[in-house]
């Protein structure tokens, strides 16, 4: 009896708290992703462009790819960039794909589409990303926003959201045509931090890996300020030329 009790306690201790156990084992969760959320990402967020300004707020010069580890295979595409041709071909959303969209200046509207799917809309380019916490097979054709699998990484007093995206259409890392291929993968970590006056900051660390057009990971970390409401939400269509 005593031994059984000790074993029970030991197993309970190793297993950890129930929500975390469900996460660690990556199996069917007993509660929904929404219920397990260690941080609240919902609401409206606005880009605060204090980094990479020259590559984000204006279109850089054709042929410039500073700080991007572009492979030799990417160079002909970089130098052949033709925004008008993209527009004519209906590819004006190439710089709004999942590997780049978080760096495009604009606003995010984050909501729960259902208990296990986080929905991230952008007003720049009017894009929608869906972060699926429940496993699902990739069945639809590749898209600009690809297919995203999400996992909470809880910690005492908070935590982080990890999102892995693949199954994307080939796109651009920057407006001036620095490419990523349809074999690229994006791993993102969403973290929040406090700002003065009860403000909040969303930090997205994005790691883009592409065996075709990158020689190494391309890492950026755009950030967003929380907004009280959607009064400044201003959807605009994709544009190749601006």
């Amino acid at each position, binding site marked *: 009896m005593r031994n059984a009790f000790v074993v029970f*306690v030991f197993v*309970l201790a190793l297993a950890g708290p129930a929500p975390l156990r469900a996460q660690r084992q990556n199996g069917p969760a007993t509660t929904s992703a929404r219920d397990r959320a260690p941080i609240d990402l919902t609401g409206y967020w606005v880009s605060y*462009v204090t*980094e990479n300004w020259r590559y984000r707020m204006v279109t850089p010069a054709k042929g410039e*790819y500073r700080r991007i580890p572009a492979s030799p295979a990417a160079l002909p595409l970089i130098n052949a960039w033709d925004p008008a041709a993209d527009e004519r071909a209906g590819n004006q959303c190439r710089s709004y794909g999942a590997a780049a969209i978080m760096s495009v200046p604009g606003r995010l509207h984050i909501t729960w589409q259902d208990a296990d799917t986080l929905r991230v809309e952008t007003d720049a380019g009017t894009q929608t990303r869906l972060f699926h916490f429940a496993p699902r097979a990739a069945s639809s054709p590749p898209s600009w926003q690809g297919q995203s699998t999400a996992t909470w990484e809880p910690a005492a007093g*908070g935590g982080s959201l990890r999102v892995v995206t693949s199954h994307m259409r080939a796109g651009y890392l920057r407006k001036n045509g620095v490419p990523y291929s349809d074999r690229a993968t994006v791993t993102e970590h969403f973290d929040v931090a406090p700002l003065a006056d009860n403000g909040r900051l969303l930090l997205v660390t994005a790691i883009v890996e592409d065996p075709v057009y990158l020689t190494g990971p391309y890492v950026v970390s755009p950030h967003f300020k929380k907004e009280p409401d959607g009064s400044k939400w201003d959807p605009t269509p994709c544009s190749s030329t601006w």
Partner: protein
Amino acid sequence: MLIHLVARRALVAVLFVGLAASRASAQFDFAGSWAPIGTEDVQNDSVPVDYLGLALTDEARTRALSYDESQKSMIERQCEGWGAAYMVLGPFGLRVTSQTDPVTNRVVSFAIGAWEDWNEMVIWMDDRPRPSEHALHTQAGFTIGRWEGGALAARTTHVKAGFIRKTGVPLTDHATIDWRFFRHGDILTVLMVATDPVYLVEPAIVSKSFRMSRTPLDYRAGCVTGYEGREPGDSVPHYAPDQNPFADEFVKLYHLPKEAVLGYPETLYPEYRKKIKNSYVPPPPCTESCGAAGNFVLRR
């Protein structure tokens, strides 16, 4: 007797479960070497007037435009080094060590090792009080840290009046810098939020990522002064703010809006991109130093 036995075992159970739960507190291993990844443009120091991405007060802009980089040639200023913010603005990696209490084995502090032109930063983790506001202000400042939500959160105060950019953008000794260190696998992302009631309208925010290095990094090097064309007692090199010869250089190189280069607050938000849509003319195609290794802008 039975009640006491059950109570003791219940206590043991609670302790075990608590121990397991604490593993989820994710106090990650911060100590080690972290190499800069360098795929983001956070240095902004390649041309003398580059205040992109900052929200400056008029006073800050005026002081920045009066700055002449030759000040660092003065023998008495050569080894001044740069302030705490240079941890994420500079090109170097981080070498982090931890100091523990030999009795409790708890971490007393983390130290981020010095570079040639940046002083060691100590992050005190032992709940010590912050010193008086009249205490010594230094380049590194005084920093207290704590674990919060899986990240290391720290706040630096007591900084010496200095700069938030190497291009001479000033920061007062009233500035506060909040740090968040997030670790995701081998990637460490450092978030800096600097506030200054005098020179910044809104916080200066920079995030920079590092990758764990198996090779120990060590950037320590003694600063040795030398003659760089300035005699002791010479006047301090400077410009009249409205006559800075470099004020338009960045504007002309990349066709950038002048108000953005000079750090006007509105330029940090998406609305500004819409405002300049019809006036912006892209620069000519890049022909030199266009690639990844070109960390610095090309000055013609």
